[in-house]
């Protein structure tokens, strides 16, 4: 194995969090920073010819190659797990920018009480209301700590939206339920296409408080505090599963890379497949010494480093620590160990499919154009008489309706799925159909976790990560409640016929839900119940920090990107202001 000259900093993973850390350290320090990305390079020009539904949205050209590595899945710990042979319920990205290239750009902040979920819920409802096998926790950070970092992340991306709570003052037209914000959004809301406008009007009539989705598909040309300029969105509708051909959708490649490329102290190595983080005994416990990886030519390399950031998305963050034998794997029977615990997804599904008389022109849109209501989110409803805790949002997206994915959806009165009658209905309803989507919180449970699979291996012979995950009654009851509410809105929108979501049964790994899996290396105030401290620093190894959604102890109802970027900013400050002066535990 070849040993390279030592670097000050190694960052594993070139997605949103890894590249944001590279930008911050590269700009604010003179440290040598090496980013190791196992996929290939990407840039805006690559996307000029990418408006092809088949190759990108169906064949998933930007996603992780499952022939090399996937995960195995089972519903409960007694079962034998099987590999997810193709991606389904979530879409792991690959290459520079990671999943931040193919995202929709929906950019919510989490509600303030999400960060203190356990204490707030106990306070209000008592321990008896919590599901027996729950594993929910406080994050060890609260909304007020994060607010300035949320604002920085929004400015970096130029998020379009309308504030609903400016320093405590409620503003109609924004989300009046959101946490306080120190400033208005950097850019005004996106345009609202017809389907979403229908939803906004109907929701208002029913007493909800609809507001435009906060969007990283920026509504107008914008230059961020780093001097990076991006054009406004053209509403072509090729966002989710695609890279933005004009750079209007904030992506790591168009928002962070222009800064990073000017920094001589940052280098990005693509095709670098990290296999282990190497630790050694040090004076006061353990420290990480560097990482081993296979380079683009397949040669095994050791890269020593003083400081290591693991930023390779939820699943690989957890898996690399397991493979490197760093930390104690979680055992669901004894509750001992922390690594791999609290795997959550999101309660995300099309609550109602509504069929309209008039055409909707749904090919026009943008990944985060649309309207949301949050009246059912968090703990805004009184749950003492409801059969579930927490809640979520109802959303009418106008993200660009594409024919391969959507042709063939017909009202229930049509009993066939092929042939003449079906075709006639499918042609008629193609542009007269819309979904109201529900996206809800997923509580953490003792039995939902990750470990290494005993049977299936990756391309190099390392064990695959095994997910053990299923819904509980809290999610099923929440889904049923949300479906009922969404039907009322669909009717008020003028839907002639509606199809209801059939309900959550077992977790379905084939139905795309969201790419918002969380947990595995969760943050917290105690090393007995978390893997990293509130600054995302490993409890046992102070020169190892783990960035990304793997730190979330449980999931909130909305999209996680803004929160994981805010956490990364906060960690960057702690590293630059404190750790570099005196390398030691930050908490």
């Amino acid at each position, binding site marked *: 194995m070849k040993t390279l000259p030592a670097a000050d900093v190694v960052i594993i993973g070139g997605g949103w969090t890894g590249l944001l850390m590279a930008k911050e350290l590269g700009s604010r320090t003179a440290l040598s920073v090496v980013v190791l990305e196992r996929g290939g390079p990407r840039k805006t020009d690559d996307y000029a010819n990418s408006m*092809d539904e*088949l190759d990108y949205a169906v*064949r998933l050209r930007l996603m992780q*190659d499952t*022939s090399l590595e996937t995960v195995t899945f089972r519903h409960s710990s007694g079962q034998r797990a*099987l590999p997810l*042979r193709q991606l389904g319920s979530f879409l792991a990205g690959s290459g520079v920018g990671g999943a931040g290239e193919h995202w929709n750009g929906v950019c919510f902040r989490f509600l303030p009480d999400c960060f203190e979920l356990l204490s707030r819920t106990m306070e209000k409802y008592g321990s008896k209301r919590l599901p027996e096998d729950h594993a929910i926790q406080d994050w060890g950070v609260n909304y007020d700590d994060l607010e300035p970092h949320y604002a920085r992340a929004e400015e970096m991306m130029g998020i379009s939206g309308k504030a609903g709570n400016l320093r405590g003052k409620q503003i109609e037209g924004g989300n009046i339920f959101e946490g306080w914000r120190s400033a208005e959004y950097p850019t005004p809301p996106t345009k609202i296409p017809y389907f979403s406008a229908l939803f906004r009007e109907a929701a208002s009539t029913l007493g909800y408080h609809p507001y435009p989705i906060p969007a990283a598909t920026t509504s107008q040309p914008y230059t961020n505090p780093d001097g990076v300029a991006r054009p406004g969105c053209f509403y072509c509708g090729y966002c989710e599963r695609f890279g933005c051909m004009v750079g209007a959708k904030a992506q790591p490649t168009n928002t962070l890379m222009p800064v990073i490329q000017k920094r001589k102290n940052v280098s990005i190595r693509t095709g670098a497949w990290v296999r282990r983080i190497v630790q050694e005994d040090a004076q006061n416990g353990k420290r990480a010494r560097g990482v081993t990886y296979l380079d683009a030519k397949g040669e095994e390399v050791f890269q020593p480093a003083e400081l290591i950031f693991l930023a390779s998305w939820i699943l690989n963050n957890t898996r690399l620590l397991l493979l490197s034998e760093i930390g104690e794997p979680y055992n669901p029977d004894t509750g001992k160990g922390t690594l791999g615990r609290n795997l959550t997804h999101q309660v995300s599904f099309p609550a109602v499919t509504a069929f309209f008389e008039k*055409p909707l022109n749904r090919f026009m849109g943008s990944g985060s154009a649309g309207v949301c209501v949050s009246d059912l989110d968090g703990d805004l409803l009184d749950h003492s008489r409801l059969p579930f805790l927490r809640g979520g949002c109802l959303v009418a997206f106008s993200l660009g309706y594409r024919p391969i994915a959507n042709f063939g959806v017909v009202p229930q009165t049509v009993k066939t799925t092929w042939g003449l009658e079906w075709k006639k209905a499918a042609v008629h309803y193609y542009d007269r159909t819309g979904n109201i989507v529900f996206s809800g919180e997923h509580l953490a449970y003792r039995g939902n976790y990750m470990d290494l699979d005993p049977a299936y291996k990756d391309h190099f012979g390392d064990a695959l990560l095994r997910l053990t995950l299923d819904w509980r009654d809290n999610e099923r009851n929440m889904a049923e409640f949300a479906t009922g509410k969404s039907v009322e809105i669909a009717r008020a929108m003028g839907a002639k016929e509606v199809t209801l979501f059939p309900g959550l049964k077992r977790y379905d790994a084939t139905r795309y839900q969201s790419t918002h899996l969380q947990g595995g290396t969760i943050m917290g105030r105690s090393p007995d119940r978390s893997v990293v401290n509130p600054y995302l620093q490993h409890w046992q190894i102070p020169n190892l920090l783990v960035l990304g959604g793997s730190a979330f102890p449980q999931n909130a109802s909305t999209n996680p990107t803004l929160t994981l970027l805010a956490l990364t900013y906060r960690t960057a400050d702690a590293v630059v202001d404190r750790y570099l002066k005196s390398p030691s535990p930050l908490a």
Partner: protein
Amino acid sequence: MRRREFLTLSASSIGGVLVYSLDRRVFRLSTRSVESIRIPLRFFSRAEALIVAAAASRIVPSDETGPGAREAGVAVYIDRQLAGPWGRDRYRYSQEPFEEHAPPELGYQGKATPQQIYRQALKDLTGFDLLDTAAQDEKLKEIEGTLFFSLLRRNTIEGMFCDPMHGGNIDMLGWQLIGFPGPRMSNYDDVDKHFGEAFRPKPASLSQVTRGNVRPSEDEV
């Protein structure tokens, strides 16, 4: 290498249309200039292609609402997909052990590739293209629950509505049928207008829109 086979389509059945040849040059046919065209096949035998063309056109038939799978060239699309990386499971995790009777929530767990699934199923459908349409529908009802049928249905929809560079959606017939304009660089001036009325820009394909050189996945090695 096996002898190259061709699918011969009657020009009148596909109308005066754009046809994409194997080397991707586009030429326009009119019913007056030729009576039939021969499209080189990449995976199917001629007999197999005729069965697939017939079955796809029962899934999305041609009728007074507009053209169907036959006119859109769905069989040509499926042939190319099967010959390409998708047909060979190039990107699918294919380490053993396989489990043929896995819970449906874990997705297809079998060993057979799309190429193998089609080839096997088409053996059992020999002569299908010679049946009358009522008998064809009966036969398809019998196999409705099979993996092959679900693949065929999915691939038929893909072939109806993909970008024409993939061999289906010839002359953007599928897009015209449903009022989809294909990739448009900008909807900025229209996205918040036309409420309640159909806005139907003339369809354009990716190569017409970007004028770039696009390499479809089925041409990857």
